[in-house]
């Protein structure tokens, strides 16, 4: 495989290294269009230069290689899998690789973002080119040194061999010379058949630090002179800060300051990531997290109402009214749906609901900030560092190049840390107090100041003819701030008469992306509904879906169908075979879904324990193209399955007069060890296609598989999440 190197001059930055080795500064994710990159000098530059360039690959004289990992690590394992791709093409022994997290560096990296399961998909080719380019230069250097043609050399595990003369050189021995060479116009990538690292499970590069309790997370940041900060936000959505009397708090042991901040001043143009229902906050600063959390109770704060308080009952009736009578946006229409429904022999109509969900990352929101007149240093858990910096720059009136952001390993993200209000708050608190601070949310702060998964309501109708053929399909969905409907996804394209409609309900509850946005609801609804339609048609649920895919393969309806019917059907067939599906008489639940460019199908088995389902076994087939790191990939699939089961069974955030009714894990139920499936069997499709997302795709369909399994085990269809009624928990 040959890849044209369109940005050769920007590709490689070289600098001399200390200690005899050499640093090849590789701007591996540099955009071809970057002005800075176009001006980059490919010649040797001095060490001072590489210090300012964070995107680099370092080769030590002993052959040890340091690979920087540019993307935020939220548990999706990119800190292991992305460097694996570089190491593969570089052709080094993975055991000699050290991985370091890069900070925010928009001059040298693009898309330093964790979201949409896109890191591997977007990084795949640039990362391979980065490794291959470095390998090419090392081989060229060895050829000079050995005075042979480069074509006579081969590499293996960081060593360059000249078999003809039985000589060899380690990468570390030629790195200095390699750095002086001109990068080639094009670079040859490995044949995937020769991969030694990609496709071979590698363990989490941070695992040893994790199991020995080393500092890794934002909450672990500690600096000399740092104060801890806790915030107080309004008790309910629709309220804001009016005044604060902090006299009882000042003077308390360990308390240093009380400040108020405003993250939404007049004139600030919010970005998409500035979702924040409570921009005006009070912050207490002191020398210990517990002291500042505790001292907040002595503040006397007056709140004022600036919009109507909302409650769950009202939310639900508003969604129902909208769904029944609202004027919808028509997102897609094929054929003549109403005429088809009129002539249908059978019409099935069902409505599905899911509540608001908090993200509940195990590590609560937090951030370190040190704002001075000269600049701002930020460090913490953030999925979108570039956007955080923009907002902080605007609020501090400070140029972006004076603001540094270091990403820590994150104790979960699930979408919450796309919205960096906590980072903004830390910066404003640091500025107001004139001190370095670490802002820490209590669990209650975290759960009650969220960017929640919206509440959703969707109605499906399906029309079948006398032979049980699907002739009409209608989906009409609404939700808080957004509709959950994807108009061009399955079963669009498989039915002649199709209508998709969107409605959105206004709310003052802040909402945002939550692992597999919209899909995390609509997949379960759609796959439950299709199960019922298959039953009405008198067909096996897998056979029924495969018939639809046959139509999409042979004669698709419309041109905008955003899935590949072959791959979609492929995962369904694979899971059918691996789970030994008993066509026509299986007692398990099945579902399939496509999102984040990957295909997943599942067969789920459960038993009823009283009224509560307990999942015992899940079979899962996945088509995400090439699996970069099978070890991490399996973990992601398993995690998504357990996450989906847990939230569908137990998750719900409800509101009374604008106040969340659940504020901690005594009232908010998350899935526990004893409630997780005892076995998950994952099967990857091997097709050699470039890799796609894995952090999200296994979650959405499992909710459908769960609902369908509940029906087969209990005889009852479930339409409302959470499927298991919430109950009080004991700690």
């Amino acid at each position, binding site marked *: 495989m040959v890849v044209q190197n369109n940005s050769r001059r920007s590709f490689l930055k070289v600098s001399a290294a200390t200690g005899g080795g050499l640093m090849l500064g590789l701007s591996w994710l540099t955009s071809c269009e970057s002005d800075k990159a176009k001006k980059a000098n490919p010649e040797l530059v001095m060490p001072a230069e590489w210090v300012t360039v964070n995107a680099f690959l370092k080769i030590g004289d002993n052959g040890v290689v340091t690979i920087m990992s540019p993307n935020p690590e939220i548990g999706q394992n990119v800190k292991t899998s992305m460097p694996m791709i570089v190491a593969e093409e570089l052709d080094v022994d993975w055991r000699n690789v050290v991985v370091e997290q890069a900070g925010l560096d928009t001059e040298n990296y693009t898309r330093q973002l964790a979201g949409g399961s896109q890191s591997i998909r977007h990084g795949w080719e640039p990362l391979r080119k980065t490794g291959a380019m470095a390998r090419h230069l090392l081989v060229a250097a060895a050829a000079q040194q050995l005075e042979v043609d480069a074509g006579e050399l081969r590499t293996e595990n960081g060593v360059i061999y000249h078999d003809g003369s039985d000589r060899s050189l380690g990468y570390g021995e030629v790195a200095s010379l390699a750095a002086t060479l001109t990068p080639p116009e094009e670079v040859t990538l490995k044949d995937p058949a020769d991969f030694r690292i990609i496709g071979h499970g590698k363990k989490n590069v941070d695992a040893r630090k994790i199991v020995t309790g080393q500092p890794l997370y934002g*909450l672990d940041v500690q600096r000399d002179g740092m104060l801890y900060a806790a915030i107080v936000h309004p008790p309910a959505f629709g309220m804001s800060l009016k005044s604060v009397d902090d006299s009882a708090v000042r003077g308390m042991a360990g308390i240093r300051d009380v400040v108020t901040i405003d993250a939404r001043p007049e004139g600030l143009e919010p970005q998409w990531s500035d979702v924040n229902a409570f921009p005006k906050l009070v912050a207490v600063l002191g020398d210990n997290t*517990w002291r500042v959390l505790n001292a907040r109770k002595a503040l006397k704060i007056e709140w004022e109402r600036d919009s109507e308080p909302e409650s769950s009952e009202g939310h639900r009736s508003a969604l129902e009214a909208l769904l029944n009578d609202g004027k919808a946006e028509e997102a897609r229409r094929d054929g003549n749906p109403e005429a088809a429904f009129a002539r249908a022999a059978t019409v099935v109509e069902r409505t599905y609901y899911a509540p608001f969900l908090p993200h509940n990352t195990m590590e609560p929101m937090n951030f370190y900030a040190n704002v001075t007149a000269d600049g701002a240093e930020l460090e913490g858990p953030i999925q979108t560092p570039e956007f955080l910096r923009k907002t902080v720059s605007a609020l501090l009136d400070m140029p972006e190049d004076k603001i540094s952001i270091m990403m820590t390993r994150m*104790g979960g993200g699930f979408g919450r840390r796309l919205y960096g209000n906590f980072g903004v708050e830390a910066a404003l608190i640091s500025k107001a107090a004139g001190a370095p601070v670490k802002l820490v949310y209590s669990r209650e702060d975290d759960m009650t100041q969220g960017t929640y998964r919206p509440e959703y309501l969707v109605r499906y109708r399906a029309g079948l003819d006398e032979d049980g053929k699907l002739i009409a399909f209608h989906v009409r969905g609404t939700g808080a701030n957004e509709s959950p409907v994807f108009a061009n996804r399955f079963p669009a394209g498989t039915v002649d008469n199709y209508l998709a409609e969107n409605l959105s309900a206004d709310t003052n509850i802040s909402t945002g992306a939550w692992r597999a946005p919209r899909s995390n609801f609509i997949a379960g609804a759609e796959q439950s509904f299709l199960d019922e339609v298959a039953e009405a048609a008198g067909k096996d649920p897998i056979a029924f879906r495969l018939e639809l895919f046959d139509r999409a393969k042979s004669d698709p309806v419309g041109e905008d169908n955003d899935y590949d019917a072959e791959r979609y059907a492929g995962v369904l067939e694979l899971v059918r075979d691996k789970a030994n599906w008993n066509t026509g008489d299986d007692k398990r639940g099945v579902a399939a879904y496509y999102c984040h460019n990957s295909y997943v199908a599942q067969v789920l088995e459960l038993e009823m324990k009283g009224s509560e389902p307990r999942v015992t076994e899940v079979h899962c087939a996945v088509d995400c193209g090439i699996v970069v790191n099978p070890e991490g990939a399996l*973990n992601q699939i*398993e995690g998504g399955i357990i996450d989906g089961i847990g939230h569908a069974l137990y998750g719900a955030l409800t509101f009374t007069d604008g106040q969340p009714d659940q504020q901690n894990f005594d009232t908010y139920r998350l899935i526990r060890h004893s409630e997780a499936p005892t076995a998950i069997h994952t099967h990857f499709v091997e097709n050699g296609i470039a890799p796609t997302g894995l952090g999200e795709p296994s979650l959405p369909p499992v909710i459908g598989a769960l609902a369908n399994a509940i029906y087969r085990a209990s005889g009852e269809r479930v339409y409302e999440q959470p499927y298991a009624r919430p109950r009080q928990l004991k700690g």
Partner: protein
Amino acid sequence: MATYTITVNGTARSVEAEPEMPLLWVLRDELGLVGTKYGCGIGACGACTVHLDGAAIRSCSLPIGQVDGAAVTTIEGLSENGDHPVQLAWLEHDVPQCGYCQAGQMMSAASLLSNSPSPDDAEISASMSGNICRCGTYTRIHAAVKTAANKMS
């Protein structure tokens, strides 16, 4: 404020604190041992699990005033070289995703195995269910506990 002395990972440490300050924040903010995590503050998630005189407890809900003179083991002190069977098993099964809850999970697992060297599936499930893993690594945790039990036998 009073002075308390506790033995942490084998070393005597003195701290000035209010008697109500939870052990968790003494460990993290006063002693700089940040391996023990904050998750909920009410003893409902297990992220803050440490051993107190050998038994697993939730350090977020235990005031320092009640543990004066006690011996505390945190994840940093579970073993000298990171080679406790539970730690080795966690590495072998590549358990962590985000990893944040895992210190608490391992402290619970180590405590379970010291009391019950060969727990069956039901016992593992029951005793590990006080520790939440938001990423959903439960099946791996379960397998790792079994592996650790085998290593210890």
